[in-house]
């Protein structure tokens, strides 16, 4: 039975490590949170299972591991490292996103800009903690609260940190309903939280068609680094709004985004093997990410309060928190926090405006980093 014993050496028996065991536990926690707590299940379940797949202890050389050139996982992972999985997900998101709330009330776009301050503060903080600039940029984008953007930028600037960055980004996005409410309540008075905003006016079909074209040309001309994200987002949105390409939009927001989500989640999870993931850097990234979310939320809320100094139709500052993006979770959080004071106050319709603006904002921020760091 030596042969059986020899054989067992290629698996757990011969490659046992506490690190892998810990990661298997983390994978199970992710799956548990996705299923039992309903936290972003479409991402946590695939990522969680991917963590299991990537942390089975095994001898290398069997053409199985995600970092072994030519293995199945490695081939599928190329969509992450080359960046086209996130782009295609943005295409699908564009084909789902309704910019009406934002178009109806364009001043709310500024809230989506303000909340991106978290990105650049985290960038500075990461530099302070000793990360080199490219890695600091990839870590900073966690504060953008946008999974595909974070994965895209990490894949371009710091592929070795991709797993840690993606896990941090999605973890905090899942924890948005835990993180944001205390910060919102801390920074607002009850009177502010009771502000009722007047219903948004309707938006013409024509404006909804012109918007993605115009917004793309504007953003891309100033921050061309964002083309690989915003080009796909606005293209998807044009397919949705044009009225003549509905079958393409439908496929983009159904089969296409589902297929890419499955593969992206699995691969991102599988890229977190213990030796790469269980490092001091990951702990720093986790802390910086948490800080980033808090700063972004605060920036959004405070900027809304600042705007209220100048405008006549007051903005409920709660919806500033939706500017971090994390679509649509943070908009829901705003609705929930508002409803605790006044159950008849339907903030979610307004919160969608900074929420989708925040997606554009973090993609522009990613473009700024890309433009600066890809030349090196």
């Amino acid at each position, binding site marked *: 039975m030596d042969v059986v014993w020899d054989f067992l050496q290629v698996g757990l028996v011969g490659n046992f490590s506490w690190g892998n065991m810990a990661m298997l536990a983390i994978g199970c926690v992710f799956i548990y949170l996705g299923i039992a707590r309903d936290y972003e299940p479409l991402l946590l379940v695939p990522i969680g299972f991917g963590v299991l797949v990537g942390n089975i202890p095994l001898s290398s050389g069997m053409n199985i591991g995600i970092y072994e050139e030519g293995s199945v996982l490695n081939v599928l992972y190329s969509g992450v490292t080359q960046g086209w999985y996130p782009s295609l997900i943005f295409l699908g998101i564009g084909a789902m996103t309704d910019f009406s709330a934002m178009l109806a009330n364009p001043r709310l*776009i500024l809230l989506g800009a303000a909340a991106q301050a978290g990105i*650049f503060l985290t960038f500075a903080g990461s*530099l302070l*903690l000793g990360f080199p600039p490219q890695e600091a940029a990839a870590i900073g984008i966690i504060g953008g609260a946008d999974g595909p953007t974070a994965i895209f930028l990490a894949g371009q600037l710091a592929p070795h940190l991709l797993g840690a960055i993606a896990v941090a980004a999605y973890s905090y996005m899942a924890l948005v309903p835990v993180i944001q409410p205390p910060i919102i309540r801390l920074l607002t008075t009850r009177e502010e939280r009771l502000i009722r905003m007047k219903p948004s006016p309707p938006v013409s079909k024509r404006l909804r068609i012109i*918007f993605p074209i115009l917004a793309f040309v504007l953003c891309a001309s100033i921050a061309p680094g964002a083309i690989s994200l915003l080009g796909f987002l606005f293209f998807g949105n044009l397919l949705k709004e044009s009225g003549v390409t509905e079958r393409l939009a439908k496929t983009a927001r159904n089969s296409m985004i589902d297929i890419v989500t499955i593969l992206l989640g699995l691969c991102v999870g599988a890229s977190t093997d213990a030796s790469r993931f269980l490092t001091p850097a990951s702990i720093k990234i986790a802390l910086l990410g948490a800080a980033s979310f808090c700063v972004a939320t605060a920036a959004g809320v405070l900027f809304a309060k600042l705007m209220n100094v100048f405008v006549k139709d007051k903005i409920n500052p709660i919806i500033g928190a939706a500017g971090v993006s994390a679509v649509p979770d943070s908009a829901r959080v705003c609705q929930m926090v508002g409803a605790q004071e006044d159950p008849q106050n339907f903030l979610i319709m307004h919160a969608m405006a900074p929420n989708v*603006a925040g997606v554009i904002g973090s993609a522009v*921020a990613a473009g700024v980093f890309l433009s600066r760091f890809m030349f090196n």
Partner: protein
Amino acid sequence: MGSNITPEMGSLAIAGVLIVFGVLALISLVVALLKKLDGRWQDHERRVDEAAMTKEPTIDNTTLVLISAAAATVVQGRFRVRRIHRLLSPKRKRTPWSAQGRLILQGSHTVRRKRS
């Protein structure tokens, strides 16, 4: 590992905030300007919608004849068109040839599927 923050990186952080803010402010401004025209566009779209609704029955008669004929050609009288499933929203602007051609084609497809 020590701090990597340099004057250049510090100013990049500040410039980044400004650029993101600038881009979104620009979009906000442009959308606000377009909103001035939006009332007129909405009126126009409402009128087109209403016109389409009024015209609907007439269009329907023409295409019904066409579909029946096309179907008759294919199935040679073995079936009868009992229900028309409108494949295009009547609100959509379209040139007559496209509307006509597409409905016939789709109509014939529907018939074929029934048979196979």
